[in-house]
């Protein structure tokens, strides 16, 4: 299964992914209409900076899934159809227990409905995650882990050129 993986050394902290994420989760799906929607769309990716490090953080689909264990309404569940942890907005009551246990801090509160939202890997859209498509430096990739690792090895080899 393809994962959203990050090359943090490429990330400039431009937040294009945040914008694209919010637009992808808007009603209109276009930036200019989205900013005027009665309920402003919520981004589910968060570019954080600490010292020289920039990093776009979104749901990592943890195997031990603390959010699923903390969810007392059954809204946060492993979804058999997509193979992902997804949150059902209709079942969510906004107790924020998932926010409380998410070690990456990537579950966002929807201020207007008092529900939570997190990365759904753009499952409802028929294309790759919007954040990945929007990333100008390819810091975000939506790839199989083995492909990502392969390109990592390739990079290593490229850097070794001239050393030997």
């Amino acid at each position: 299964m393809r994962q959203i993986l990050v090359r943090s050394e490429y990330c400039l902290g431009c937040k294009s992914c945040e914008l694209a994420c919010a637009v992808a989760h808007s009603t209109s799906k276009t930036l200019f209409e989205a900013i005027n929607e009665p309920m402003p769309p919520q981004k589910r990716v968060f570019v954080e900076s600490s010292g020289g490090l920039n990093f776009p953080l979104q749901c990592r689909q943890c195997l031990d899934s603390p959010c699923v264990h903390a969810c007392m309404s059954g809204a946060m569940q492993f979804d058999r159809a997509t193979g992902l942890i997804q949150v059902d907005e209709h079942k969510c009551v906004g107790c924020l227990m998932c926010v409380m246990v998410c070690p990456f801090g990537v579950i966002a509160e929807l201020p207007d409905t008092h529900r939570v939202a997190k990365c759904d890997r753009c499952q409802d859209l028929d294309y790759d995650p919007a954040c990945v498509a929007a990333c100008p430096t390819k810091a975000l990739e939506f790839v199989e882990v083995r492909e990502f690792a392969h390109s990592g090895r390739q990079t290593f080899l490229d850097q070794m050129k001239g050393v030997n």
Partner: protein
Amino acid sequence: MSYIIVGNSAAGLFAIEEIRRHDTKSEIIVLTAEQEPSYSRCLITYFLAGEIPASQLYLRDVDFAARLNLTVVYGAEVTEIDSAHQIVRSADGREWHYSKLLLAMGALANKLSILGDDLPEVFTLRTMRDALAINNILEQGARKAIVIGGGLVSLKSAYALRKRGLEVTVLVSSGQILSQMLDAKAADIIQEHLRANGLRFLLETEAQAITGQNHVQGVLIAPETELDADLVIVGKGVRPNSEKLRGFGFNIGLGLQVDSYLETNISNIYAAGDITETWDFVRQKFTVNATWPNATTQGRIAGANMYGRQEVYLGSLGLNSVDFFGLSAMSAGITKLLKKEAHEDWSQTENLKMLGGLPIYRNLIWQGDVLKGFVLVGDTSQCGVLTALVKAGQPLTQTQKNLTKGKRGTLAVGMMK
């Protein structure tokens, strides 16, 4: 192989799902004393408040039992365990044989024992049945309610009744609400917020008797002082439902005792959830941490081990979250310094500010450089990362400590470096 799960709330449900993940064939029998498929006890007050319909209390879809091939027996209250023959028996004489047994029958609400506590409008709030009965009284037009107790369930009940338009008075025997969950300052902020939204509090007040002949009329709080009420809700905590297991050879302390695989002292019998006494890895003692995330985690791990895996349960953690009229509060681990600890290497970093008229309060509790717990009110976005730090129990450098003051995620990113 035949698995029997006693109790179908948080711990039972997660155990079932975990067993089925590994074992799709063996028989799983679920015995529940109630008459309902798995529902969320924590959502009951949301239902009472009128925020969700009763149908939304259920945790899984209607086809859940069929899809997982479960035999669910409702109204089966287990009263006898014959571990020599691996048989459980219910109060009405039915019996089932098990290869692996999970005891996850949770906790019972403590009742008051004062005059008038048997009147029909006096309730504890633990089960869906309680909630439906209280809802009936509300629909009959109750106007004044008294909630006895200042804990989480009491306040969530009081909030729900207030939302339904009742006049609500909360009687708290100690001097602070939510004393298990919050420190005094955070409790004051929440109490003031609730007061501003119409709840009335009487601290250091005990209910002495509930008055009325056939129906509740009021609550006596002093020999000459009676408060009017049509409805009384008692929230005096819960106790593990382990009393009736005495006499079958279990080690029972504060709750049912288990080893680090969540197996009881009797082999092939496991325990999980609010009935269980577990190791609190922050407080460093055995206790009952009866909260949802602890129950589900214990259920999952017990399920895995019943199947035959060897997963170690590292321990439980006090963890709570509330939201009243738009102000949320969360806490984890140790939430206030005890006097004796103040002399040692314990310290706290406290911070209070106002933002847009709402208070933002945080108090982090440290032992040396290790984060042992925290209380957050208002802005709770950093909570998950702080919880992870409490769980990790690792000493932090000064730079990392400074990061705990930042917003969401900066801490997570900072810790990656």
